[in-house]
């Protein structure tokens, strides 16, 4: 096994924290993106748009 310490922050790691973590504040103009469900939907949409160009590596395992 190898332990890798990445110097550059990967976008997914950032999104794990910025979309699912951090203080959620509602009120004023605060937007509903805080909703985890909505974020999931957004990410799924993003993932499927990525998949159109790059075949998913697990396709042949299913």
């Amino acid at each position, binding site marked *: 096994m190898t332990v*890798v310490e990445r110097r550059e922050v990967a*976008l997914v790691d950032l*999104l794990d924290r*910025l979309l699912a973590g951090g203080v959620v504040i509602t009120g004023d103009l605060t937007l509903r993106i805080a909703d985890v469900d909505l974020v999931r939907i957004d*990410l799924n949409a993003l993932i499927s748009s990525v998949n159109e160009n790059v075949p998913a590596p697990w396709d042949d395992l299913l």
Partner: protein
Amino acid sequence: MSGLRYVYAVCRPFGTPLPAQLTGVAGVPPKQLVHHDLVAVVGHVPEGDFAEEPLRAHLEDLDWLGATARAHQNVIDALTVVTTPLPLRLATVFRDDSGVRTMMQERKETFLRTLDRLDGRVEWGVKVYSEPEPEPEPESEPGRTGRTGRTGSGRDYLRQRRNQRREHEEKWEQAEQFARRLHESLSGYAEDTRIHAPQNAALSRAPGRNILNAAYLVPRTESEAFVELVDRTKDDAPGLRVELTGPWAAYSFSGEDA
């Protein structure tokens, strides 16, 4: 003044100024908005991009989302150098300064309590991946019919498939056990832990399958020991890969229920 207010974090007042060249979301330098014994770190952002509707549309644009997330993180990183920030979720937007002040006033007690809890702590991310499976051997396909005949080849093929599946399941079980043990021992060093959903390989582009995606709240003073502990796991499980990220501001531990 026109524009909306993007709030990155809430902190206790800190003496050190932020770097003059620091920019955040929309390329705008963040400013401090002091309210009693709290400071909100705030940037002016254009309504055309950050009002509810345009923002919703932007969030489906991976490039925009990525650039905004990195700009947000840029500010949080700078804050982490001078204080222990309480990071807000991406795209927390208010109409004006007075909206931000009202919010701070309303949540003052909670903010102070959480800032005390997180003071001097950082978050470390640890992920475990199984290394990618080797390609299945192509000779299990019809090529061997000549020697054993159709029926035999079919039976061989099925047996081979069964064996492959069993091996796969065993590997998977070992990997899960390893991840569970690692998580238990790391939890011993952490004040708090969070398990995130496994990452999607299409988005992370990381090889292999993500088995554990966890966050650990660790005092700064204990961080070195924590990192060493992660590093020591490297010989424990062949076929697995451990990734360490951080130190992060305590994004995963900023909720009241934490």
